[in-house]
């Protein structure tokens, strides 16, 4: 489903990613951990076609990221700490806009379905600027799943959410048929990441230094000790 070979990204003199190799099967959920500046967001941005790699190949669902970016964009949904929502449009108008951009069939019905999926139907006509951070992030999930993509890329989706909003966010993700989707999630929330994933990896200074199936991790404490030895810093 996702194949990354020898991927590197350089910004000026700063090497953000070094020779990343990664293969993901269909419906696999990978949690990607790492300290700030490790290259997690850069990796997600390259996979989502937002930035071009310096070298290496990325193939998603059979499409090359350099040659067939539009085909890849049709197949991915991105949830990040930025919601990509227009503050001066209502929740419904935002989804209608994105629905038309993705050429979603029967937009009105699909928008209504995803709005109720994320529990925002009563606020459909309210401007996004009146929403709390948690509500915006729920609407951001609706935006990302609107075109029913087989691949979800989640870049630190819990940033700025309170514990209640985090729980709501997880519940909505589970409800949105996430088990049938291939998911890459970067996060600093180790417990959440381990709980949701079936594969965990650690990125340090642009390199994947640890990558194992979730079954090899006994518990959160065990993973924290692995993380600390990989990163060389205490959590």
């Amino acid at each position, binding site marked *: 489903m996702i194949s990354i070979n020898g991927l590197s990204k350089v910004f000026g003199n700063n090497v953000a990613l070094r020779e990343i190799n990664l293969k993901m099967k269909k419906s696999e959920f990978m949690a990607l951990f790492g300290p700030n500046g490790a290259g997690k967001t850069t990796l997600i941005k390259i996979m989502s*076609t937002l930035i071009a790699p310096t070298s290496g190949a990325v193939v998603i669902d059979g499409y090359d990221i350099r040659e067939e970016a*539009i085909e890849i964009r049709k197949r991915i949904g991105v949830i990040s700490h*930025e919601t990509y929502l227009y503050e001066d*449009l209502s929740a419904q108008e935002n989804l209608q*806009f994105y629905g038309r951009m993705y050429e979603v069939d029967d937009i009105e019905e699909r928008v209504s379905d995803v709005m109720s999926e994320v529990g925002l139907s009563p606020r459909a006509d309210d401007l996004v600027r009146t929403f709390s951070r948690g509500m915006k992030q729920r609407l951001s999930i609706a935006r990302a799943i609107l075109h029913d993509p087989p691949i979800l890329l989640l870049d630190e989706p819990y940033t700025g959410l309170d514990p209640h909003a985090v729980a709501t966010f997880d519940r909505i993700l589970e409800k949105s048929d996430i088990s049938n989707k291939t998911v890459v999630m970067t996060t600093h929330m180790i417990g959440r990441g381990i709980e949701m994933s079936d594969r965990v990896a650690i990125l340090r200074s642009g390199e994947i230094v640890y990558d194992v199936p979730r079954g090899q991790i006994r518990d959160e404490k065990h993973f924290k000790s692995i993380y600390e030895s990989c990163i060389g810093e205490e959590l």
Partner: protein
Amino acid sequence: MRRCLNIAWKDLRAEFRTKQMLNSMLLFSFLIVAIFGFAFGPYPERIERLAPGVLWVAFTFAGMLGLSRSFASEKEQGCLDGLKLCPVDRSAIYIGKAISNLILMFIMEGVTIPVFIVLFDYSIPNLGEIGFVVLLGTAGFVFVGTLLSALTVNTRTREILLPVILFPVLVPVIVSAVSATTKVLSGVLNILDELRILGTYDAIFFIVALLIFEYTIEE
């Protein structure tokens, strides 16, 4: 094209709701015309020589306010990446933005011209020809301005940088538009040379923008 119109619809819907850009553009153009009005008095001699300068200064300076916000508002709301994630050719984003900028410019110009007529007590002759010159001049202004607005969106001093790099590129448009407007207001309707320059400029910059837009919004 449907998706270009969708982007323009989204921009205009948000703009007509807040009227942040439109109000600023209208106020600014009104101020320019009013200041010139006070400076030259209500019945200046040879107004047909004065009017093109006043009008095009108002159009370009007020238009600059709108252009500078075109991509900056996307960036500030964190929506530029959302747009770039949509499965469309990046040039569709450019066309959508250019359409919404054109509509805002035409609204501003549609208000500025009557204000000018009232303040200077001047009845503009050959309105059809003037309208055609304004249409071509505005198109050139918007085609280049939208491209450069995207180019400067990732810089910290974008509001300052945009006019600094835009006005030199706009010289052929402004010179031709002012010259054509002067001729039409003086009753000379042979403005084919100016229209040729404006039309060629518009076509060249529209095509160039479509070709290079993808690279201008890259991070």
